[in-house]
């Protein structure tokens, strides 16, 4: 990414910036320009600002987290793009990646959160009352002890 952007900038913009800067410097009314340190190109002195680097690294880490824990998102995006050549070639890669993430158990985190949400979504007032000790828990009676309603598998068809 970075090398591509560097090459893009060099090719299309940097070569223009230098002559413009030189022309401006030739003008008698122009204020004196600071001499850039040896080894720095004009305008590159503050090129590595920490905030930019921090933001880029944070975005990349976030992308990595999502790629690992939400690999099914990649599959569904690839399926959405399956009409294009790029999409078609992406789909098997995304599916292989998704399979690998499933094998190492990375998808369990999202599945358990979704199970919890489904429990909340389908809860009735009687369940809420039972939760606060104001009655029997009818849901608990129907399932094995210690197991939430949808915590093991997602009933996709019910969503």
């Amino acid at each position, binding site marked *: 990414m*970075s090398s591509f952007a560097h090459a893009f900038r060099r090719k299309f913009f940097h070569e223009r910036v230098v002559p413009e800067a030189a022309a401006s410097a030739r003008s008698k009314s122009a204020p004196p320009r600071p001499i850039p340190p040896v080894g720095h190109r004009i305008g590159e002195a503050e090129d590595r600002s920490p905030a930019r680097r921090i933001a880029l690294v*944070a975005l990349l*880490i976030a992308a*990595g987290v999502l790629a690992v824990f939400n690999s099914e998102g990649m599959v569904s995006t690839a399926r959405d793009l399956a009409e294009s050549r790029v999409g078609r070639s992406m789909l098997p890669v995304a599916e292989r990646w998704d399979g690998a993430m499933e094998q190492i158990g990375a998808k369990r985190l999202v599945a358990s959160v979704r199970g919890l949400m489904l429990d909340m979504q*389908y809860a009735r007032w009687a369940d809420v009352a039972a939760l606060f000790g104001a009655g029997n828990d009818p849901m608990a009676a129907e399932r094995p002890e210690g197991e939430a309603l949808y915590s093991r598998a997602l009933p996709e068809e019910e969503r």
Partner: protein
Amino acid sequence: MLFPTLEFGIFFLVVFAIAWELKDSPEGRKTFLVAASYVFYGYWDWRFAGLLAASSLINYAAGRLVTIASSDRDKRMLVALAVAINLSILAFFKYYGFFLEQLAELLAQGGMVRDLPFLEVILPIGISFFTFQGISYVVDVYREEIPAERNPLNVFLYISFFPQLVAGPIVRAADFLPQLKAEPRLDRQMVAMGIALILLGLFKKMVIANYLATLLVDDVFFSPDAYSGPDLLLAVYGYAIQIYCDFSGYSDIAIGVAALLGYHFKANFLQPYRSASLREFWRRWHISLSTWLRDYLYKPLGGSRHGTATTYRNIMITMLLGGLWHGANWTFLIWGAIHGVALVVERMVLAVVPASGSGVVAGDSFGGAVKAGWGGGAGRDAFARSLGVLITFNVVCLAWIFFRSESLDYALLYLEGLTNWSGPVEMATPFLVALVAVSLASHFLPEDLLPNAVRWLENRSALTLGAVLGFGILLIWAIAPEGVAPFIYFQF
């Protein structure tokens, strides 16, 4: 390209990296951002990218011509022409079918059936927003609040900048163009703010708005006659929350994305349902539209400077046109009328009831800068404010019924159903009641909660920020209902 999608995530990652690599080449950076914005817009339909370019070109040329024109009369003529062209484009795409339908109905009632030139006009996404930005630019140049841009790139980027292109906020030329001339900067505060706002916006849209839409609002508004009064009441409160979370969520993401690219947008929403008066509501709800209407419509009409009757007239015109801006439908017009009448009535009441000084309403909004409040003495301030909040919220909800309903008939059916409390209550599940109640309660949280969160994030490492963003999005993804619904304001 919708914000909460992987496509946008990849798009933004690429744009972010390249835009900052081009930091030292301002023209290159702007060219790149314009190109990226057109890719973003063209992702929906490439044909309308031409319309966007034409709108930008017209406003750029108008700005130049206004500056060159020698007499004030010529300048006025040019501004009027530019505004007329902008509004004609908007009118054609947005109102052509509606007005022709009404005309056909009118002619039929008079016994004159005519073949009218009906067309299948597709509404270009975001047209209301970029048209208003174009008008804002030309008028600001005329008012000499900003100089006319020599560089067309600046105008093209101002009108097409992708974070705010399709659903606002409506950014003012005087706020944005100076930023294009300064060196783009990104500091830790902007990074933290960007991340916090993106997460907040995604949560509002993907979790709250989408759950309310899919589990409650869509069903109830689709057939209001099938539900009892309590369900209808819950659904309209739910819709009030849904539209707030949907629209303010989009604004939050747009402001956050712009911040990460080094640009500052003003806030578009400030916990609107905590308002104790309609006037306060309009200083907290869709601020970019309400201030636009105030500065480019209400004030040019005379504002509150020419007596009480003229002020009331101006408020009504502004609110009716504000309603019509949302779309060509009687329901939007009535929505605007309810707000207009409520603002007028509120102003009448406040003229009689002495101001409490409680800060309920202070500042310049529709109706002028009048410090006023519901109720009297200091001891009753809290009660007066609570009452004001309750009344304001319910008036706003009444207007939302018309705003959300498919047609006037549906809205009237809804109102009729609200009076019938004998049927079974089906929709009030603990989950939905809690969602509505907690979302409403969040309007009364301290206003500095977000700034405090940003301050906490500011000093974190890249690893922490990345983890917060990554796991934050993951959690939102996991708890949200499946699928990505389009934002409500895309249709406007």
